[in-house]
């Protein structure tokens, strides 16, 4: 870390100290607000994301594909059909595929290998919209929800997982395009805003990354859709004026590995609700 950054950090720390008295007074209010928000997130009646969870549960057990079997034979890393805690350790290396996969890549792999399902249509509906339900969004909502209350445990022991982390870090800082943007442009400093939107800092381990990664997938009120990390990064690359990133490509997974590593220990509370 360069000296300028350290000093900026120290300055931020001092500011926090000077501000701490009024901040403390506000804290109880803020905590109450957070409590209220948590209750809403966890209430299936108040959070439309739970509709996706329910559809995902049904889809998981639906027999499909040439083999006419359900996804219950799919191993998400913790053993075939075992869902509890699986999301908290994704992305991870899968021996049978000899690849590191995020949840969406793994689900597609299982559809193809376990069910022998032609995934063309599933891919066409990878992102839901008006009148279009997305199997992927629903399955991710259901499976991620099975890790609620658990903490992210990034898997970076296998050499291929380590490669993913290193590449993810490099991609995070990779500037290109007509605006010279990288992820760092918008997510490289604490407490920054673009227009009025608060931007989490993912350039270091800690609370921003923990809170963020623990809150995806999320129900996006502005889009009336349950959204996954694949969609979020699609949207950020759009804002970066980059081309459309391939759904389920290894670059997206590498960025996800990097961000869950920065967010290690973050508690999973999904589906959350966001703007």
């Amino acid at each position, binding site marked *: *870390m*360069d000296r300028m*950054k*350290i000093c900026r*950090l*120290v300055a931020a*720390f*001092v500011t926090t*100290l000077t501000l701490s008295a009024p901040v403390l007074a506000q804290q109880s209010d803020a905590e109450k607000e957070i409590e209220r928000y948590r209750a809403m997130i966890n209430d299936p009646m108040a959070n439309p994301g739970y509709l996706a969870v329910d559809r995902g549960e049904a889809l998981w057990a639906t027999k499909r594909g040439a083999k006419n079997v359900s996804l219950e034979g799919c191993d998400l890393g913790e053993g075939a059909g075992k869902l509890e805690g699986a999301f908290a350790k994704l992305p991870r290396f899968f021996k049978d595929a000899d690849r590191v996969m995020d949840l969406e890549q793994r689900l597609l792999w299982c559809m193809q290998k376990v069910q022998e399902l032609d995934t063309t249509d599933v891919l066409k509906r990878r992102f839901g919209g008006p009148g279009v339900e997305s199997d992927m969004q629903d399955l991710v909502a259901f499976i991620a929800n099975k890790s609620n209350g658990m903490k992210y445990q990034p898997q970076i022991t296998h050499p291929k997982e*380590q*490669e993913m*982390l*290193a*590449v993810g*870090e*490099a*991609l995070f*800082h*990779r*500037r*290109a*395009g*007509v*605006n*010279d*943007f*990288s992820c*760092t*442009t*918008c997510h*490289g*400093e604490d*407490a*920054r*805003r*673009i*227009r*009025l*939107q608060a*931007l989490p800092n993912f350039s*270091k*381990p*800690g609370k921003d990354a923990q809170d963020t990664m623990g809150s995806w997938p999320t129900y996006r009120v502005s889009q009336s859709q349950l959204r996954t990390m694949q969609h979020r990064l699609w949207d950020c690359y*759009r*804002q970066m*004026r*980059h*081309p*459309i*990133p*391939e759904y389920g*490509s*290894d*670059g*997206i997974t*590498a960025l996800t590995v990097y961000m869950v590593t920065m967010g290690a220990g973050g508690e999973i509370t999904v589906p959350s609700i966001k703007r």
Partner: protein
Amino acid sequence: MKKILLAACLTAISGTAFAQQTVKADAATVDRYVQSMWAKASPEWKARVVQDETQAECSVARNNPSPAQFEKITAREKAAVVFPADGKVLGDWKSGAKVANTGTGGQFSDGPGTYIGGNCYACHQMAPAELSFGTLGPSLTGYGKARNFSAEEAKAAYAKIYNAQSVMACSQMPRFGHNKFLTEQQIKDVTAFLFDPDSPVNK
């Protein structure tokens, strides 16, 4: 107090140590991922993810170039600034307000013919009446007035907007003219938005 500062610094440093445990990926490996991520993009779109020298150097340096590298990049970018042939750097501030306020253009979701804006408000405070401004860059409120509307300063601002890195290597601000994202006229207009005494920026 000293102890607290030290503690803060130590926390910061241990965070870095954590990040540095990661071996840096080599360029060829990163490029393989880049290629596959945009495998299906059209040639015109694919060209966008090819880095120029400055983008590549700033990426590798994580935007913290060494002093020598800083000098080298800044000099190279400075040499690439093209000033208007007529010598006039100030256009119409009203059109400049539109450049500053518009965030569309250049995205894969934008239809053909979408107006391309500079989206300065995404990062900067400008006219004090506009409350929806970002904080990735410094406030530019009263920019021209604070510089006595000097012609010299206006020219410097034009260069800054044309190529932010001609002043500061690895600046996070887009090189609007250099990358041909904004037209010469748009840059003149937005410079006027900063420098015209009638512009709301200076009220």
